[in-house]
């Protein structure tokens, strides 16, 4: 009896195997755009809360009032057609498009905007702090919304943010975060795609919204699948067989294989992310400026990019990455020069035999360990002893925030990116003095710079040119004194099938691309 049951089950499975193989049920008639994601496609799909990869989905399901054009550096209209602000930059009026509907059919209007932003501010999670200066949001008329701020604020830049700036339907605003993460696919967006279904933390299927306010093309993709494939080799194989059309972040061998493949285009795209080294200016010997410069000259920048990163990075110039306003092509930058390093070391008067530097790095990132070890060998040539300490993020940051400067590391490494297209992110977080350290991990306490940073933030809305000049001044000062040095700007590798057109990566919107603009040939 038992044997026959087993036999039956086996036959049943075998039969269904053939049914599955033959795909007798037919395939969908439309082409599917398959994006092989290197990690979870989202942490949460609640647009008020998500501060991570989920933007690869949210950017296509929801929209913001404005968008940042990385090529011109200008803020462009999206859901808003135009905007004005008061002379002092505290009151902003946005005029909205009148032809936009949300996926539930309701119209996008000033009420929806007010409710969406207030929900984000109220929940207070993710990047909600970008709205910190906004005191009130008023509905002036059906399609005009007014933001009143406590100080001069560049609201148009904030509304173009990749996080925390999405506009959703009023009914969606009433929902709890869990509603957005329901596997049946709920969303309250106005964007070209709706969330069709989810597999928790693994896969998102989007399907086209016919009522979108922009015109669909014949060759647009009506279905988009974003799925997690953690292994670089898996993503590569998907591209090679044509099962996937877009994927990013590959290992060296995979990149070479993809470059050799005619069906795939490999792109090295710039980001606004840079890797920064912070010197502990409150502890010996890094409190000595000449010593810091010696360290800066001994770092093998180009070798790291060629050898460790294999071109997944480019030489930095200043704290603010290229493509963003505030970037200074003429900013002081240190190059790898052992002679200059020796000279600065001699000038510093520091006795290297007594020096034992602690370089704190975050664990889990092989590139940090690799370049730290490379740097270590060059420092040895100078007679400087450096110890590399790896810690998990929590311990790493806690160590840097220890109460007494002597208990903290000598050198700290961290990646940074702006929350939205504004250089203040670097200055306010990492240069402006702090009572107790948060992200100013060189522990810079310079009142003159503080004043300039605050003034620049005030001027951004009304006089961007002056704000930019101020940022550049502070930037120059920080680099001249080698308080912290950017070691490289991150570059990501994307591989795109030659069957598609219209792929574009805008660094202001990390890890995402607009599927609406992609067409198949």
């Amino acid at each position, binding site marked *: 009896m038992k044997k026959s049951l087993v036999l039956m089950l086996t036959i049943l499975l075998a039969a269904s195997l053939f049914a*599955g193989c033959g795909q007798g049920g037919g395939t969908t008639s439309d082409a599917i755009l398959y994006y092989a994601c290197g990690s979870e496609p989202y942490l949460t799909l609640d647009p008020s809360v998500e501060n991570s990869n989920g933007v690869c989905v949210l950017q296509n399901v929801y929209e913001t009032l404005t968008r940042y054009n990385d090529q011109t550096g200008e803020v462009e209209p999206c859901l808003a057609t135009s905007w004005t602000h008061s002379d002092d930059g505290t009151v902003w009026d946005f005029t909205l498009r009148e032809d936009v509907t949300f996926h539930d059919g309701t119209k996008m209007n000033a009420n929806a905007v007010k409710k969406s932003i207030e929900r984000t501010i109220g929940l207070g999670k993710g990047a909600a702090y970008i709205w910190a200066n906004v005191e009130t949001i008023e509905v002036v008329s059906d399609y005009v919304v007014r933001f009143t701020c406590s100080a001069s604020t560049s609201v148009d830049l904030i509304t173009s943010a990749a996080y925390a700036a999405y506009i959703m339907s009023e009914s969606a605003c009433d929902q709890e975060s869990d509603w957005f993460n329901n596997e049946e696919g709920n969303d309250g967006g106005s964007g070209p795609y709706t969330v069709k279904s989810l597999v*928790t*933390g693994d896969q998102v299927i989007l399907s086209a919204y016919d009522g979108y306010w922009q015109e669909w093309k014949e060759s647009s993709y009506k279905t988009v699948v974003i799925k997690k494939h953690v292994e670089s080799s898996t993503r590569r194989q998907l591209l090679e067989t044509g099962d996937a059309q877009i994927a990013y972040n590959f290992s060296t061998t995979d990149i070479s294989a993809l470059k050799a493949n005619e069906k795939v285009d490999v792109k090295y795209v710039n980001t606004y992310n840079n890797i920064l080294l912070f010197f502990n200016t409150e502890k010996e010997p890094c409190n000595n400026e000449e010593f810091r410069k010696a360290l800066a000259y001994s770092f093998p920048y180009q070798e790291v990019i060629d050898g460790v990163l294999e071109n997944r990075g480019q030489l930095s110039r200043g704290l603010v990455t290229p493509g963003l306003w505030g970037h200074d092509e003429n900013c002081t930058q240190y190059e790898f020069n052992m002679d200059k390093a020796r000279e600065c070391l001699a000038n510093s008067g520091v006795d290297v035999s007594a020096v034992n530097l602690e370089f704190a790095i975050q664990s889990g990132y092989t590139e940090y360990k690799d370049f730290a070890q490379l740097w270590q060998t060059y420092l040895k040539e100078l007679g400087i002893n450096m110890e590399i300490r790896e810690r998990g993020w929590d311990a790493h940051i806690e160590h840097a925030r220890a109460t007494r400067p002597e208990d903290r590391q000598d050198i700290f490494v961290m990646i940074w990116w702006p929350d939205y297209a504004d250089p203040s992110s670097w200055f306010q977080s990492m240069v402006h003095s702090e009572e107790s350290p948060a992200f100013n991990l060189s522990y810079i306490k310079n009142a003159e710079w503080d004043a300039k940073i605050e003034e620049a933030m005030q001027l951004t809305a009304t006089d961007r040119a002056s704000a930019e000049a101020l940022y550049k001044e502070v930037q120059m000062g920080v680099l001249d004194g080698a308080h912290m040095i950017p070691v490289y700007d991150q570059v990501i590798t994307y591989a795109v099938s030659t069957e598609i057109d219209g792929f574009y990566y805008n660094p202001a919107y990390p890890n995402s691309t607009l599927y609406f603009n992609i067409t198949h040939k």
Partner: protein
Amino acid sequence: MGKYIIKRLLNGLIVLLGVVTITFFITRVVPSDVAGKWAGERATEEQRQQAIAELGLDKPLATQYVNYLKDLLSGDLGRSLRTKELITKELASYFPATMELVLVGFLFALFVGIPMGIYSAKKNGKMLDHATRFFSIGAVSLPTFWVAMVFQLVFYRILNWLPLGGRMSINASLLYEIPNVTGMLIIDCILTGSWELLGDAFVHIIMPGFTIALYPIGLVARMTRSALLEILNEDYITASKSYGIREGKVLWRYALKNSLGATATVVALSMGYSLTNTFLTETIFSWPGLGSYVSKSVTTLDYPAIMGIAIISAIFYVILNLIADIIIALDPRIRL
């Protein structure tokens, strides 16, 4: 037997309580910016305070522990600090996926491993024996991720016979409604009668299932072989043969049953172990199971999730151990 099971279950509850308590206190001793995880790294002081209040972190540790136990009793495992999702919901999504993989893997292992062990014992010392022993050692020693990648390369990339990974094809998930009864696709498809989806799901589970099966195949084969060898030398086997009972019947009906005890224990324990160690296979086959959830939770110190995983693993270990003991107890020679 009944009393035995109840006693064991009670023991299991004590084990569970121990696991919960130890994990609870350890995760809170390790340095961790909990408010930062909930509110965001760059959160303002105000947001952090709001987070601390929301998570109940301002209460003394003992109160937090009691509250946690209270919530646990009502089935609330809390929310992941990282995704803010209910942990029960995440586990309900990931756990069946891994469970399905492990079950299929172990079924493969039993179907292949036991016959291998038997023939190995029967043809002791001959070529077949050497070949299967070589295979079992290989199965146990070959690194899982390497085997997985080779399977993927050969069967997907080169031959294109099997899909790259995932639980079902995109076409299938778009065209058919996916049944959700237990969360284990194959069982759900059989229960609801979705035959085309069953085929698709089965085709997807072949490679990862077989990769998971490798280690247990080796294990089962070797254990079955050694247990059988011992038994085949016993007097009662010689006696049965001399009574004229067919060799096959002797082997399968009499000898095998007696050897199952040790094998059952080992299989049960390695199943429990596999449940939280499918990370490598799941990564390569993009299987949405517990593996990456566990690793992500541990590396980001997402302690509610870590506790949820610890609890569910402990529960399953207890159950599997109990099943193993019951199987052994079926042997009348063992007095409970």
